[in-house]
């Protein structure tokens, strides 16, 4: 017998969050206000994602938590333990074995299926916030579909840098209506958002929930002469040799040594188990 209600939150809170999730799915890309609760972790550590997961999990679920693609970082480990303790759900690090995946700043490399749910931790849900700090104004801009300011920002990037310099939290337009912040995922992940799984976004401090049903149209904003480019580091993973995955740059000494490795640890481990090698693993083998 656990000392907590199933999945930590009380039932009335879960109902409120569940209603917000359903409205979010009915109006893809629109940020539904919700009464975010204090969670036993600081803001910025995924309190929004945790609340959405808590309202979504059933006792039969298998949960995977990733932080920047990795299953073994502090944030991921502590959230996984939190739900092991409060919801007694099974956990996994294997992408394909999970039914609910809570993520911070990445979409897994492996394609997700129709039976999976991806829950994003979102710091700033409002894509227009850094352009217009007033909530009353950004709300009006969404109501009027007035997104000129966002295009001006992207244009200024081109004028200043020669290309669109936004590399993460790259704004998208959902179903030709709402401009949405995909959370700080690298723009490399943007094309994956048109997927078969249900995507839920929770911003705890900012008290917003939004969602994308499967197969929802998600288009990264761009210009005809400067089309969207989901770029990545021009290297292969040093451990598994993957050329199609998103890479982290790791500094290895103070003489400029560096290596690039998959940010998705499960993807990398699976490839290495299949016998793939990268520059670094080849050297150690030899």
């Amino acid at each position, binding site marked *: 017998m656990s000392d907590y209600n199933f*999945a930590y939150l009380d039932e009335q809170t879960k109902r409120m969050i569940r209603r917000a999730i359903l409205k979010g799915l009915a109006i893809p890309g629109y940020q539904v206000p919700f009464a975010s609760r204090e969670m036993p972790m600081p803001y910025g550590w995924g309190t929004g994602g945790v609340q959405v997961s808590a309202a979504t999990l059933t006792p039969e679920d298998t949960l995977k938590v990733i932080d920047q693609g990795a299953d073994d970082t502090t944030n991921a480990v502590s959230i996984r333990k939190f739900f092991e303790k409060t919801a007694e759900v099974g956990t996994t690090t294997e992408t394909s074995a999970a039914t609910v995946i809570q993520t911070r700043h990445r979409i897994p490399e492996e394609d997700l299926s129709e039976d999976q749910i991806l829950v994003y931790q979102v710091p700033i849900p409002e894509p227009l916030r850094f352009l217009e700090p007033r909530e009353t104004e950004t709300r*009006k801009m969404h*109501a009027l579909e007035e997104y000129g300011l966002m295009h001006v920002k992207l244009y200024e990037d081109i004028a200043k840098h020669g290309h669109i310099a936004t590399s993460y939290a790259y704004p998208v337009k959902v179903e030709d209506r709402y401009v949405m912040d995909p959370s700080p995922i690298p723009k490399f992940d943007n094309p994956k958002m048109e997927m078969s799984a249900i995507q839920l976004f929770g911003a705890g401090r900012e008290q917003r929930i939004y969602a994308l049903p499967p197969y929802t149209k998600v288009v990264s904003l761009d210009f005809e002469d400067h089309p969207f480019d989901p770029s990545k580091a021009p290297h292969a993973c040093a451990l598994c040799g993957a050329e199609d995955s998103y890479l982290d740059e790791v500094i290895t000494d103070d003489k400029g040594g560096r290596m690039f490795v998959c940010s998705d640890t499960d993807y990398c481990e699976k490839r290495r188990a299949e016998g793939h090698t990268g520059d670094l693993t080849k050297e150690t083998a030899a």
Partner: protein
Amino acid sequence: MEALELTGGFFDPAPEAARAFRQIMTVMAKPGTILDLDQAEAPAPVSKAAATLLLTLCDPDTGIYLAGDADTDAVRNWINFHIGAPLVSAATCDFAVGTWEALAPLSQFKIGTSEYPDRSASLIVESDVLENQGAVLQGPGIKDRAALSLPETAAFQANQMLFPLGLDFYFTQGSRVAALPRTTEVR
């Protein structure tokens, strides 16, 4: 109060509500999908699926409107005892329950405002038939196309034109449920 007014709630509320919500979320995310929903039981004529929807999503924060035959003393007592939701008029409700004929006209329900399109009503339509044939559905949540037996098409086409405002529908028949959000294109 009759015995049935006191029974029919969740046996083990937290996990049962969680399982019920997952079914509800799945049908809302994938319009046209029909799933079982039978964890709760309310007095007739409310179906098990509609009773479970109300019990999972409603509480003292949400106004419920009972339309037509669904508005009986037994149902009112069941909602008072299990949910504690205020019973309100069609114009102010967050959730409405009734047959398609009893819920008409749809113009009486909240469709949200352009700044808060989420402040709209969800309609639980009690149906005699619920099957994957009839109207053709396309839109978010649907890979190519889906089909669902709808009471008519014109009302849903008009509702879809209101997007991002509009109503969201749940169709219930016995212990089965399907949903149609405002985004779905109906032909």
